[in-house]
């Protein structure tokens, strides 16, 4: 026989354990519904960890939010647009209110874009908000990833989050391209023609890929509908999934923070979500939305009616893709015309290398960087305090070099606009960029590294000698000197709490390591020297105290002359450990 079920009490449900205090009217109103939900969803248990979660405050942490909010705006405005947009390449004759295209044949998708722009009130506003939001989505993602890169926030345990971010940028890029190709206007159609030529040029599989993408010969009648599916279904789903994972990791790992007094690797200092961050972040959402709507209302973007419907026999001077594809466009323009004709086959290096190679290179390098740096430093610790860019000059140099290379390709993408606006020969711009795309990043790396080391020196000056006051004193013998005041302990802490990595000398032979392993270890050590040999070493406590005691009549404590007069900071060379694995601390 079954055992009797436990009896269920008829007594009223236990009240939520709220402390006995006078609750305001809103709380009283919400009590009933909250109780209802809590009995079914356990909302108190769910929300407990999050209600007062602490977020650190810095303006650069809001760049990721700009990207997130732009995406929300894209979703909202996108739904509006789908109500009127028709993803069909079927031919129609235009009979709408834009007289300059009256009677022309065009695709239905172009006609629906014109309809939205001229005949639906607010339609053009929403179209333009949508396009500006797309531009801002990608720009904010790049700006955010630059911030993450330069502060080293991609280090353990956030490497996977970095990869999610790289995937987001790539997906966003494709999403944007698919989106602006939907109106089937002359400019985006020219872009599709470019993609057709690019896909076709892929060695071995090009024609197959081309026919499969376009459903046959270019332009066919399927590509707009297919891009529509990609744009409103496939990629938004992927992006939403990536964003959810990205944010979940930020919540789980907690946000990083800049160094400062009271902040260390084990805590996070800031304001609670409720109420401060809700107000600041929620307010920022409205600010981003507001800026986007203002841009959509005041700044015209993608005026498809002046471009005209797509016609494969027409083109406009100054045709460019949207800015985020500019680096690929630039690569394609400056690439020399290398093509191999082997027997009856054609290998189009001139198209395939810049077209696919730039994307692969850019995103590939972005993706593997955290792992390369982790291999060089062999750093297994978790990092939650951000690095100031000057304290890792080589990484910062790499970042600026990458930006320089990207920038050179960007300029290449607009080389004809550069030529006309600045009255330069178009051909000269191209020739210059073919060289500059390699040379300028190297120069940028060198300059940046030097600037960072200079900044490190000025930090060291402040630590050892205090801050300059601008007060000049003259001593009895006639010599001038500037008075310094010691910096606060908080600032001194901020300037010295960073982690230092060692530049290691080569390891000698080791019985524990095979030849191959020893070679790799020495390669790693060489890399670590490249990375860290120029970086200044932090002053030790002894040096700081010594500097404090060097009064010399130069003013207050912590001023004085701790240097050898050459102005050389303390650089880092450590004798390498000869046994595998042992890394000298510091």
């Amino acid at each position, binding site marked *: 026989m079954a055992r009797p079920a436990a009896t269920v009490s008829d007594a009223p449900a236990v009240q939520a354990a709220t402390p006995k205090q006078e609750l305001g009217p809103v709380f009283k109103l919400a009590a009933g519904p909250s109780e209802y939900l809590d009995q079914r969803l356990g909302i108190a248990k769910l929300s407990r960890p999050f209600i007062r979660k602490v977020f650190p405050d810095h303006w650069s942490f809001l760049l990721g939010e700009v990207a997130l909010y732009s995406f929300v705006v894209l979703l909202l405005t996108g739904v509006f647009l789908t109500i009127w947009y028709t993803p069909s390449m079927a031919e129609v004759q235009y009979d709408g209110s834009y007289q300059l295209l009256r009677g022309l044949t065009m695709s239905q998708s172009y006609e629906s874009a014109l309809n939205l722009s001229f005949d639906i009130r607010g339609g053009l506003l929403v179209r333009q908000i949508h396009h500006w939001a797309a531009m801002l989505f990608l720009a904010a993602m790049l700006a955010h990833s630059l911030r993450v890169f330069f502060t080293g926030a991609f280090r353990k345990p956030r490497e996977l989050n970095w990869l999610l971010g790289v995937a987001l940028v790539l997906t966003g890029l494709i999403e944007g391209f698919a989106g602006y190709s939907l109106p089937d206007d002359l400019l985006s159609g020219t872009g599709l023609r470019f993609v057709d030529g690019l896909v076709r040029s892929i060695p071995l599989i090009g024609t197959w890929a081309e026919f499969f993408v376009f459903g046959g010969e270019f332009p066919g009648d399927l590509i707009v509908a297919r891009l529509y599916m990609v744009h409103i279904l496939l990629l938004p789903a992927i992006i939403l999934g990536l964003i959810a994972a990205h944010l979940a990791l930020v919540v*789980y790992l907690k946000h990083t923070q800049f160094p400062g007094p*009271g902040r260390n690797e084990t805590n996070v200092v800031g304001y609670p979500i409720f109420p401060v961050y809700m107000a600041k972040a929620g307010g920022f959402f409205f600010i981003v939305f507001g800026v986007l709507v203002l841009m959509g209302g005041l700044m015209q973007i993608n005026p498809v009616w002046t471009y005209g419907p797509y016609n494969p026999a027409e083109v406009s001077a100054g045709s460019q893709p949207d800015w985020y594809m500019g680096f690929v466009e630039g690569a394609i323009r400056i690439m020399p015309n290398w093509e191999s004709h082997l027997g009856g086959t054609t290998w189009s290096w001139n198209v395939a290398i810049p077209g696919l190679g730039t994307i692969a290179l850019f995103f590939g390098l972005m993706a593997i960087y955290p792992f390369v740096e982790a291999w060089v430093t062999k750093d297994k*610790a978790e990092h939650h305090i951000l690095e100031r860019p000057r304290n890792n000059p080589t990484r910062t140099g790499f970042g600026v070099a990458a930006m320089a290379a990207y920038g050179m390709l960007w300029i290449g993408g607009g080389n004809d606009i550069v030529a006309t606006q600045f009255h330069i020969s178009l051909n000269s711009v191209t020739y210059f960029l073919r060289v500059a795309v390699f040379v300028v990043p190297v120069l940028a790396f060198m300059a940046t590294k030097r600037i960072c080391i200079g900044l490190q020196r000025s930090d060291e000056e402040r630590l050892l000698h205090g801050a300059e006051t601008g007060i000049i004193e003259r001593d009895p013998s006639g010599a001038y000197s500037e008075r310094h005041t010691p910096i606060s302990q908080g600032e001194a802490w901020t300037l010295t709490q960073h982690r230092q990595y060692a530049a290691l000398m080569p390891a000698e032979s080791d019985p524990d390591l095979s030849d191959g392993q020893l070679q790799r270890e020495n390669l790693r050590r060489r890399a670590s020297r490249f990375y860290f040999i120029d970086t200044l070493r932090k002053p030790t406590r002894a040096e700081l105290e010594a500097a404090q005691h060097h009064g010399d009549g130069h003013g207050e404590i912590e001023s004085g002359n701790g240097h050898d007069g050459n102005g050389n900071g303390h650089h880092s060379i450590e004798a390498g450990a000869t046994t595998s694995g042992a890394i000298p601390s*510091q």
Partner: protein
Amino acid sequence: MTDLERSASAGDGHTDLDVAHPESQYPVADPGHPEHLPRLTDVDEKAADRATRQVATMFGIVPVLAIGFAVAYFALPRTMYIDFGFLHVNLQHVLLGTTAGLALLLIGIGAVQWARQLMDDHEMVDYRHSATSDAADREYVVRELQKGTEESKITRRKVLGRSLIGALAAMGIPLIVSFADLGPWPTKKRRAATIETTIWHEGVRLVNDITYVPIKASDLEIGQLVNGQPENLKELEGTEFQQARAKSSIIVVRMDPRTIRVPASRQDWQVGGILCYSKICTHVGCPISLWEQQTHHLLCPCHQSTFDLGNSGLVIFGPAARSLPQLPITTDAEGYLVARSGFTVPVGPSYFERDSRHDFKEGDN
């Protein structure tokens, strides 16, 4: 000293992060949180009232703007324009944008100002936990996984697991195969019928694009450029029309025969200095009609490939690798330009299976 805070909620008040702190890493000790300085609005009631009024006013303007949006939407004629200095814009559009935009902006600024000036701004501290799970969890999971694996009998009867993997992998085949009709297969035959051929053939008249006016050789001046199409293009429509146009577009140029180089093999492809070339760039397919009358150079606006039309369309600059295909032309009985044949090589961008040995190269004659 500092006035550090109320503890955080997740607050067990300690951390489980294992961070080694060798003494030497921190030459300066952490002085702890700086003292909390009150804001003006914290001590001065009048300042706080002012801030409150600011925020409330900002929120208060929003409904006005929202109504303004509705007024602009319904009351303004769609075609009204502002003509004010350099502003030459549609009024309704601009008003819809500015009312809605400012409204949203004011909500945001108000909320932020509220947080900055009036909400309590004591900083709080939360403690981090190592991302790594604690030892107990890991041991439990490993143990239970092992138990579960034994219970599943998969280790004893390996064929179960292997055949399952094989079965699941095999389902990849239907998945991939289902996409095989994404497009027609570009077999050799299909390529020959599509991308390797155009609607040009012997006897087709050259006509102006858009107007379809045929071109008489004697109508062309030296330095003239005509954007053209084959006459039979007008028999097509819809997708076929676009596909044909993407390959059949041509340009006709007239140059002084004394200033150009016509190779022996192409002497009868031209009519007294009138030459016809494909308009489709051999780089990635943009139509080219940027022709310099005096230099005879043709510049593609997309990626700046430049072709010398006075020298059989050879590439002289830019990323295109092959010369521009030339269409052999002659005149018919009435003096109109007609094609002698179709193009002798596939027009447009390169592809892997393309036999590019027959394109005109430097040094060919």
